[in-house]
């Protein structure tokens, strides 16, 4: 069943909601006015925590809890909106800004008020020139309407919101790398702890939230916790905008309450509309390229944080890539790891060298057709040396495609080996090589 009321993709009910005046006519900034008039910052934090809003950027961490980590009485504090959406298969932030930008801006404003910050930054990925422009325009309209700036609506509260353009680096979606980039530096991640909530941008307490997370906030504040919890499951309340792509008839962004089966997203005529040419599903990457793969036999899994984690994968950013039986698993792993290799920032050795070698070996196996007899154990050995040893999640993510492909489709790798070498790929050999 499609939603009759959307939380994020409200353009489906109000097609021109991207227009500031139309947004105002449809409860736009009502939540912000209500917050300023009736709610203390702590009340909003409590509402967001009680609503069970979880970070939509990938980790699914409870947003209200994160806001509670800020040390008391340390000012200034900063709110950062992470709009560096670059995860392969994920394209919902882009669409939110294009079609319902004011709800995001209102979310940024209310959230900044909730964490008692007077400065908020929206970090837009360098390639999103149009999105940055849309946001700047929307922010200017909010200033002109007295909803931003000094002494907002006579409340005594001041807030400035800035848009910062990135310059094309996937790593800047990592929160500490994003802060480095905002400070005008190379986007390489920082060591944690200290966590951003304690010591973030310019060494001050900082909260970083994803675009979709912040766009939820005005609706929670306006409609209340119970209304919000009427969507989704107990542990994953609300809705998620899933980006569906790959071999489906209708790729696109679809907002679903948490807890519906994967099958429904792919096959329902309201969403994916089935597989192209009715071919079977072979691989599903459910949360962007960083998520471990699922297979066509797992279509009954439900789309919520718990179910996908229990199946050994993750909901991640909600970018669902569906591939049919015509694809070669080693080739898909090669293409995905080529992305991670290219985007590795070079700070830590396991990621920089590991992604390089994964791609080198996969390239000779898949593209050149010159697999070496020992290539399968070598691949196992490389990703095992990366897993758990990388400085940030980029390197850990690069492990997922190759590890999944080898675990789920080992025979496809064996077929690439020189004739007569299939017996070389038993587990014993792998262990020997790791210990060597």
């Amino acid at each position, binding site marked *: 069943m499609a939603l009759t009321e959307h939380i994020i993709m409200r353009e489906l009910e109000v097609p021109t909601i991207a227009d500031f005046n139309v947004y105002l006519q449809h409860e736009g900034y009502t939540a912000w006015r209500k917050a300023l008039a009736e709610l203390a910052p702590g009340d909003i934090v409590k509402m967001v925590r009680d609503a069970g809003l979880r970070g939509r950027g990938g980790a699914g961490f409870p947003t209200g809890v994160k806001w509670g980590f800020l040390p008391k009485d340390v000012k200034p504090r900063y709110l950062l909106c992470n709009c560096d959406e670059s995860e392969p298969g994920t394209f919902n932030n882009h669409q939110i800004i294009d079609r319902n930008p004011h709800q995001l801006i209102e979310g940024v404003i209310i959230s900044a008020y909730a964490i008692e910050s007077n400065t908020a930054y929206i970090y837009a990925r360098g390639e999103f020139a149009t999105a940055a422009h849309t946001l700047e325009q929307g922010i200017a309209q909010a200033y002109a309407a007295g909803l931003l700036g000094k002494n907002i609506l006579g409340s005594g509260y001041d807030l400035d919101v800035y848009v910062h353009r990135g310059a094309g680096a996937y790593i800047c979606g990592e929160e500490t790398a994003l802060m480095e980039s905002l400070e005008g*530096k190379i986007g390489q991640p920082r060591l944690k702890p200290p966590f951003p909530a304690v010591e973030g941008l310019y060494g001050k307490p900082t909260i970083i939230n994803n675009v979709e997370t912040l766009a939820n906030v005005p609706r929670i504040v306006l409609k209340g916790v119970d209304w919000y919890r009427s969507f989704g499951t107990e542990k994953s309340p609300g809705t998620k905008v899933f980006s*569906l792509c*790959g071999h489906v008839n209708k790729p696109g962004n679809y907002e679903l309450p948490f807890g519906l089966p994967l099958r429904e997203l792919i096959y329902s005529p309201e969403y994916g509309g089935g597989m192209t040419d009715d071919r079977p599903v072979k691989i599903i990457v459910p949360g962007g390229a960083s998520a471990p793969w699922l297979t066509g036999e797992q279509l009954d899994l439900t789309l919520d944080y718990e179910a996908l984690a229990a199946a050994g994968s993750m909901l991640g950013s909600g970018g669902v890539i569906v591939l049919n039986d015509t694809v070669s698993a080693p080739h898909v792993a090669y293409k995905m790891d080529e992305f991670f290799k290219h985007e590795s920032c070079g700070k830590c050795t396991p990621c920089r060298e590991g992604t390089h070698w994964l791609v080198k070996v996969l390239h000779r196996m898949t593209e050149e057709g010159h697999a070496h007899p020992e290539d399968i154990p070598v691949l196992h050995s490389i990703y095992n040396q990366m897993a758990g040893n990388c400085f940030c999640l980029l390197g850990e993510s690069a492990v997922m495609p190759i590890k999944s492909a080898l675990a789920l489709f080992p025979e496809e790798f064996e077929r690439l080996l020189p004739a007569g070498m299939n017996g070389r790929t038993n587990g014993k050999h792998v262990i020997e090589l790791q210990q060597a």
Partner: protein
Amino acid sequence: MKTVKSAAPSTDNRWRIVDAAMRRLGFQPHALIETLHVTQETFGFLDEDALRYIAATLGVPLSQVYGVATFYRAFTLKPKGAHHTCVVCTGTACHLKGLPEILAALEAELGLSPGGSTPDGKAALMTARCLASCGLAPAAVFDGKMVGNLTSATALKRIRQWVEHES
């Protein structure tokens, strides 16, 4: 507030645009990335004079300016040498939905390969790892405009228009 300390590398009026961008951001070191964006949009690329001037004006070490200019993919230290650019997405979805065929057609019909330009130098072809438009796959950006559901025919048509209009 600081003012422009060092003199612009030349009397080219376009430096005023760069100066204005730095002034708007208070000549702060954190204005570096935005300043590089504005400079590149104004001049097409970042040469050594530009890097030195920005470093001196923002009070940032030249090494950091060079590091940032080479770390981020948006910046280039060499002129593109083409009037028009097409950036094709090489992400997973675009690859699956027929990017290889499109690239093959551009190569065969126009002699255009990734990183290169048409023989007359009018159109350049570049690649991006993922343009975050997977729902529109295959996607490409033609002179700043996103085009989805690309086919070999539509890609060829757009680039041919550029080449023919200019001649």
